[in-house]
């Protein structure tokens, strides 16, 4: 294994100025808003369909959709249109957007102004996860300071372009991270996802054309503009260009957020001395969950550890890079217990709109509870798969769905993984716990 380190682009300022990186002074003292100045000399079309397109930037919120393509879906000539920033980060074990908001809010604001200018939008909304109290305070201060310096408001830096930002706090609901649930919530409703089509680009917030982008996606834009899209695309591998921020947690020696060039491997991330630093107590990886709780799992096998951090390559293994979370579990971990806790999460967060998800996630939780607490029955694994099949027929990745949004199918990932990699362990556990007749 090579001694891989970070490639700091969007995390550079917060490492250089750990004591004040969130202030306007720190931002301006280290190249803040230079990307915006350059962007304002271009046309919106040049930013989106030349620079961002050439950069190969794909969404960092979970789905990995190409950003320039998403912007191109906006119907021509229909105004007003809105930019909605997804700062609702709730995918279990993902904690990168919170860091970007708390420690470099100006970088995010700069990205928002660039994106809004590129798509021709004059009002942007930032949907901030309700629990991010400090992040909200810092963003509010940053918006005020940016406005005072002429980076927001009317006639930004003399360009004739106007933009205002409304900060909007959520109130505790994971499903509001799903883009249409988010839009419902922003309209003052229960955060229940909408049936698509119509997609937000056509009918989004207040039924107007809307782009929803993730915090990290937008925070990357100033750097793409400054470096040039083609230069940015030289980083990374294949269609996974640039860097991504990985939230590494669990039984590693050095949990934390690491900005890593795509194309390095999970092994690099978990074991490199400058990154995860290996497993606690010199242990080994039993399994890990890439991409957040919604992804299927991988094991400590060489094949899995040596898989590249590449959105396309990992999908061949049936998993995803998703939100960039990587949860690592050592040999002491009960996979059934982890599966139960994730099922409990999905059952709690199901919005209740679709029957297979509302009912199915509850059943997964109940059956996994008894399975992980010494009360399992030999037929339970198959029962779980049967319930899962009603939510995601075929149980294959990428998952099919009988539901309105992907939350329901996501809940099935843990069950499929448990069966795939730990069936024998689970069955042995059931047999050992059984009270002799």
């Amino acid at each position, binding site marked *: 294994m090579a001694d891989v380190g970070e490639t700091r682009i969007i995390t550079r300022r917060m490492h250089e100025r750990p004591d004040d990186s969130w202030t306007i002074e720190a931002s301006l003292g280290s190249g803040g808003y230079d990307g915006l100045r350059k962007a304002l000399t271009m046309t919106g079309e040049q930013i989106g369909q030349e620079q961002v397109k050439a950069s190969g930037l794909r969404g960092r919120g979970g789905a990995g959709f190409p950003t320039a393509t998403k912007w191109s879906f906006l119907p021509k000539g229909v105004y007003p249109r809105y930019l909605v920033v997804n700062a609702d*980060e*709730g*995918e*279990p*074990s*993902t*904690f990168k*957007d*919170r860091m970007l908001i708390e420690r470099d809010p100006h970088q995010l604001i700069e990205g928002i102004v660039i994106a809004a200018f590129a798509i021709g939008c004059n*009002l942007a909304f930032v949907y901030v*996860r*309700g*629990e*991010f*109290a*400090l992040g*909200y*305070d810092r963003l509010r201060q940053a918006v005020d300071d940016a406005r005072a310096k002429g980076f927001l408001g009317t006639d930004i830096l003399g360009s004739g372009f106007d933009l205002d930002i*409304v900060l*909007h*706090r*959520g*109130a*505790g*609901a*994971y499903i509001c991270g799903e883009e249409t649930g988010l839009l419902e*919530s*922003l*309209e*003052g*409703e*229960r*955060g229940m996802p909408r049936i698509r089509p119509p997609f937000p680009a056509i009918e989004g917030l*207040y039924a107007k054309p809307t782009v929803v982008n993730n915090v990290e996606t937008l925070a990357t834009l100033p750097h793409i503009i400054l470096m040039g899209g083609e230069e940015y695309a030289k980083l990374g591998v294949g269609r996974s260009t640039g860097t991504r921020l990985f*939230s*590494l*947690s*669990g*039984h590693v020696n050095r*949990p*934390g*957020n690491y900005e890593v060039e795509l194309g390095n491997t999970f092994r690099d991330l978990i074991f490199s001395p400058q990154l995860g630093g290996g497993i606690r107590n010199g242990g080994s990886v039993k399994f890990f*969950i890439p991409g957040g*709780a919604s992804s299927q799992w991988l094991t400590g096998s060489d094949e899995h550890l040596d898989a590249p951090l590449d959105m396309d390559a990992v999908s061949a293994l049936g998993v995803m890079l998703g939100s960039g*979370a990587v*949860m690592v*579990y050592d040999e002491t*971990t009960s996979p059934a*217990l*982890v599966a139960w*806790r*994730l099922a409990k*999460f999905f059952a*709690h*967060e199901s*919005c209740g709109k679709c029957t297979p998800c509302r009912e199915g996630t509850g059943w997964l939780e109940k059956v996994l509870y008894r399975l992980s607490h010494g009360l399992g029955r030999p037929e339970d694994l198959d029962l779980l798969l049967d319930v899962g099949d009603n939510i995601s027929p075929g149980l294959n990745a990428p998952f099919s769905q009988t539901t309105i949004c992907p939350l329901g199918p996501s809940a099935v990932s843990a069950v499929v993984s448990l069966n795939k990699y730990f069936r024998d362990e689970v069955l042995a556990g059931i047999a050992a716990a059984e009270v002799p007749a």
Partner: protein
Amino acid sequence: MAFTPENLARAREVVARYPRPKSAILPLAHLAQDQDGWLTRDAMAEIAQLTGVTAADVLGTCSFYTMFKRDPVGRLVVSVCTNATCLVTGGPEVLEHLEHRYADDPEVTVEEVECIAACGGAPAMQVNYEFHEKLTPDTAAEVVEAYRRGELEARTVSGSRR
């Protein structure tokens, strides 16, 4: 309790930010909790008036969100994570300890929550939405006590700075 005159003025400002008034329901419910310590029926009725919907609409929206407390809670809301990373690093033990310790304490409300995006410092909790990481049952209780003694300054139960 209705909004104080000062908060009423703020509430009107908030409504004016949005193309449609109904969008202000969440921010106004936070404002009401900042003021009252929980989300009262009276506050929901007033939010309904301010946003041009019925009180039932406001309740319908607010009941979807876990941060809105529709019954009185303690001055300190302690939210302990037990999700996938905290699960294997001691979160459930922190929760159990605090639940027992503060079971009969009207000042402190302990709740189990889903991942709060602090997994790099697991196990983690929030006290009125201020983060505290790398906890043990004992250090977690010490943190709560520090708030009680006023050594740590608590946000409102909706997480705003006073």
